[in-house]
């Protein structure tokens, strides 16, 4: 009987604590203002290519979860956030209309909308056309190098290509195909496939590159285009080994019981 009394006392105490906790929780949503003010933006594949802003689709269900350590997108609640249909692509006739979507980046990449208007419009009064150098060698222009730092050290094509092989001569916010027609920044695969045909085929069939959404072969997917993962100005870098820019890794797993660090992993079982 005495024991039961003790139990009930303990329970009552616990209950009291529980009610205190729940009361605190009820009080907590009263100030969501600072949370709303702080916008969480995380990058997707590589830093600087595409970003997502975190928001709640419905209560407790965000469109994306971001890594607190690296700021990378770690989980997708809505894979089609901010996407548009990909447009025509040769060899993709089996996928239903609108089931291949991409996230447009042309707005973000068109850093200087005036580029194509003021200088590189092709109809300048003094030069005609004003943007075309005489030879096919890049001439270092301090203005351009200041605007796009990657230009100073182009790591693509091992010196065998130059700017105008990819960029349109007069429409600077477009890429260029074999016929001199402009290609949107949203469809870089049409340009990259000119040289990297094997990769284009693999990408088209889903073997190369990243897609999110539905896994069935006719399901709706968001396709990541070439430049969302690869920086075209910097694809061959000695410090890394797989054609992908280096980034910070996520935290390592918990150490086993009783271990202070993971130095044991660095020892070789076979001396050499």
């Amino acid at each position: 009987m005495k024991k039961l009394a003790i139990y009930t006392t303990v329970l009552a105490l616990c209950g009291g604590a529980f009610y205190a906790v729940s009361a605190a929780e009820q009080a907590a949503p009263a100030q969501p203002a600072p949370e709303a003010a702080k916008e969480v933006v995380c990058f997707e594949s590589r830093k600087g290519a595409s970003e997502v802003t975190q928001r709640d689709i419905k209560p407790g269900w965000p469109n994306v979860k971001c890594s607190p350590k690296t700021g990378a997108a770690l989980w997708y609640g809505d894979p089609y956030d901010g996407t548009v249909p990909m447009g025509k692509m040769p060899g993709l006739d089996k996928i239903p209309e609108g089931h291949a979507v991409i996230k447009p980046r042309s707005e973000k990449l068109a850093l200087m909308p005036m580029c194509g208007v003021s200088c590189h419009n092709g109809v300048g009064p003094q030069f005609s056309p004003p943007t075309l150098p005489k030879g096919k060698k890049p001439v270092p222009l301090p203005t351009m190098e200041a605007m796009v730092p990657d230009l100073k050290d182009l790591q693509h094509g091992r010196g065998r290509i130059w700017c105008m092989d990819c960029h349109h001569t007069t429409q600077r916010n477009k890429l260029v195909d074999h016929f001199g027609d402009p290609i949107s920044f949203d469809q870089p695969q049409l340009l990259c496939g000119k040289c990297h045909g094997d990769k284009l085929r693999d990408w088209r069939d889903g073997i190369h590159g990243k897609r999110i959404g539905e896994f069935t072969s006719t399901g709706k997917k968001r396709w990541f285009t070439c430049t969302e993962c690869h920086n075209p100005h910097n694809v061959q870098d000695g410090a890394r080994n797989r054609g992908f820019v280096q980034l910070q890794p996520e935290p390592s797993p918990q150490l086993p019981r009783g271990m202070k660090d993971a130095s044991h992993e660095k020892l070789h079982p076979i001396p050499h």
Partner: protein
Amino acid sequence: MTPNETLPTDPAKEQSSECPVPPMSADPAANVLKTSRRDFLKSGGALSLSSLMGTAALMSQSGDAEAAVEWAEHFQKNYRLMTPAEKAEARLRLEKRYSDEYGKKVSVDTTEAQPGVLMGYALNIRKCIGCRRCVHACVAENNQSRGTKRPGEKIEWIQVLRMERGKFEQEKMNHGYPEGLGIQVGGNAYTPAGAVLEGQYHYNPEKVPEADATYMPIACMQCEKPPCVKVCPVRTTYREADGPVVIDYNWCIGCKMCMNACPYWARRFNLTTPVLPKEEMNPVTHYLGNRPRMRGVVEKCHWCLQRTRHDRYPACVEVCPVGARKFGNLLDPESEVSKILERKNVFRLKAELNTFPKFFYFYD
């Protein structure tokens, strides 16, 4: 509401209400045993049971609903032997319990395998950069325990192994093997990268990928002949019809036999009560998938059943920044995985064990 109401009263009726083709574990002996146990509990244990429940109801302020839920859960069958009605009941029970516990609307899916689907996975070992985003996406999706204080509180289903690259060297042309023992078994100019599959799990450089390393993520291989299923004494882990090997957590006794049997170190044990903060809990769950686990049960990768049963990619596939992870239907010749099997160089981890994984490693 007493658990007795949910129990079948007529053994013959119970037999007939089960699926027409009983699964492997539905042997008649087990059924007989079960009914006799139930009868015993019904008649003999009813008094003590009700008195216990009464005490529980008196002592806890939340009323007897919670206690009844606990009891009903205690007496539920192996998931494969449950009738659709029992599954629906279990689902409602769990949804209510989780919603109360985590303070948000939690759904527990019980979608069955779709015919014509056999899930398969492929990983481009050449592309992996070892960033561990898949590991943490998996944790965000699958409600693993994420404590940091005590050992065993942080559970991750995917392991990423960092493996050194070995090399051949001119200076070592005359080295013997094994070294230091004076036995010459031939030249050994090779500097090994470690024994097979031995590598670092806890690597933590500033930036990945490192030039002198390769990375190999490992998780459950979803074998076609899974050794873990063979050894499970209570048959709570089994291969679903569309491929993944799943666990009915309620029926798991925590004997860890499956952990011993698995050659891929894929299974994790809830040594402590799982630490799962309310705000981080993923409310979209599947009964056999990512619903919150209890202490003392084994868990592992199930290819995000709550997503893949609804045609969504698994969470690890969606976050891989290099697109090394591929998932698809092996029975569909147009799927990504089928194309990889057709075109690329593919290997299975520890293929010599004849476990026939549906997880393939490939390279360009």
